[in-house]
């Protein structure tokens, strides 16, 4: 299939394929080294990183729900310094762009994180303004356009790398948030983060999750994510990374037809650790069957 190309580029980041990983589902990439061919992965979006190490939430952190799962990990991570000193030197050998998902408690912390991560081996930062599982900080940056814009501006001022804003689906109007992100200077929009949900144990009358609520992911959220990508595509010009329940190449193609320039695979990594390879191979087959040569040819081609 030498004439078929899955190569793409987002905000100047050259990628071998439009297939990325969703933050929090791929560790730092090395956990999947036995399974994933990093030449097939467009970019590795690593675990959400904060200024200081975080131990995350107590109690039960995941539970399976119909066609999905709820998680409330609570941003457990070793902190940005450990990432830069210990982890980044280890994972750069995979020769796959590394995108770091960052979370701050304040607007200034996003800027500080973006500055620290403006290093050669980091391709971009993705702003997590909508982790549904973290209580402290007090401000839900991602559900209100002004605070989200200030976070974007803070990051942009402090780095020369592309800044990706990850939108929360837990808003009334996703299009309004996307437009605000574009206006604030974001380079790329990724969506969707998890949908806030919960589960209850009817025998104990207690919430299943230690954090009571958690983020829903997996096939259950795909129709919602797809709809949001489609709506946002029509409203903004920025490149879009679509995600939400992508389990196979067909799902990935749906997101790209709806307008996503790239896609991110999340929960599926837990189910099938070599799923990235399979989606890559199946995307190639799809292009061949459709007599297409370049994956970019399907982006936004939904005939609605």
């Amino acid at each position, binding site marked *: 299939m030498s004439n078929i190309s899955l190569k793409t580029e987002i905000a100047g980041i050259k990628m071998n394929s439009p297939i990325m990983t969703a933050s929090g589902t791929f*560790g730092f990439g090395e956990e999947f080294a036995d399974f994933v061919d990093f030449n097939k992965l467009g970019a590795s979006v690593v675990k959400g990183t904060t200024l200081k190490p975080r131990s*995350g939430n107590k109690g039960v952190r995941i539970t399976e729900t119909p066609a999905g799962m709820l998680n409330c990990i609570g941003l457990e991570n070793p902190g940005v310094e450990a990432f830069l000193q210990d982890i980044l030197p280890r994972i750069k050998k995979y020769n796959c762009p590394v995108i770091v998902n960052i979370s701050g408690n304040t607007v200034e912390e996003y800027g500080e994180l973006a500055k620290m991560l403006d290093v050669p081996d980091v391709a971009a930062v993705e702003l997590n303004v909508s982790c549904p599982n973290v209580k402290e900080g007090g401000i839900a940056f991602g559900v209100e356009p002004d605070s989200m814009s200030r976070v974007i501006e803070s990051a942009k001022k402090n780095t020369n790398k592309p800044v990706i804003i990850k939108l929360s689906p837990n808003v009334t109007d996703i299009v309004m948030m996307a437009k605000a992100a574009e206006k604030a200077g974001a380079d790329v929009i990724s969506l969707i983060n998890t949908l806030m949900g919960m589960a209850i144990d009817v025998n104990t009358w207690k919430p299943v999750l230690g954090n009571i609520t958690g983020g829903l992911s997996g096939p259950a959220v795909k129709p919602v994510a797809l709809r949001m990508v489609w709506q946002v595509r029509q409203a903004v010009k920025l490149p879009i990374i679509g995600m939400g329940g992508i389990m196979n190449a067909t799902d990935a193609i749906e997101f790209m037809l709806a307008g996503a320039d790239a896609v991110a695979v999340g929960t599926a990594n837990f189910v099938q650790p070599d799923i990235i390879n399979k989606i890559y191979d199946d995307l190639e087959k799809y292009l061949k069957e459709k007599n297409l040569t370049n994956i970019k040819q399907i982006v936004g081609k939904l005939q609605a």
Partner: protein
Amino acid sequence: MTLPKHELIDGKVIRHEQIGSNDVYLLDIDIFTDAEQYAAGQFVQLQVPDGEILLRRPISIADVNGTRIILIYRAIGKGTKRLTRVQCGDTVNILAPLGHGFNLDCQKPLLVGGGLGIAPLILLAKRFKGKADILMGCKNAAEMDWPVKMYDNITAENIITTDDGSMGLKGFTAQHLPDVLAKKAYDKIFVCGPEIMMKSVAEIAKQHNIACEVSLEKRMACGLGACLSCTIETTRGRQKVCKDGPVFVSQEVFFNE
């Protein structure tokens, strides 16, 4: 960091039957690869062959035989209940081997198992080639049926407890542990069972100054150390049950008591 090599394997079900009165099942799978290399205490992530079940289910390796692995599980939730419908000859996908197993470095081992926690100690007992004793407990004689059969001839001595006294000694394993320790000079205890039982056993081991390893159980999604569903606080900092465990030195994980 060097991670152990993990594989996705399509296995074939050779035997699948209910062996315990309380919904305990035995699954014997040919994985067409050398299973003898797996360490006692390691586990697999098994994909329940049904599109409705999303996440893999972590199940400890109870025993191995050439290219076959034996899994013993309890049909307690939606996933494991669906798993009971798997037929002989069916293909099941497993992710294996996962985690780190027990450290066998000792002269006179005592295994302590409670309920389904008795299962992963089978392979451990076999690896000790008959020199281990086991103290094992279940609710009643009916539930003790499969452990008695499984441990026939693989240990030096089997000490049985049941909560209701319908077989062996009446009460919990931990209640009888001091007596057991008084009779022989054990130099290491390996325990698997409910957390409350493991904590009691670990405490008694500490009082007797005997080394103790515990096999922990936590909800997990990936089994590869990526999702961070199963992390715990230890004296060595935060550890992942799936990758750094599931076997830990007891005093590293039960340090609050």
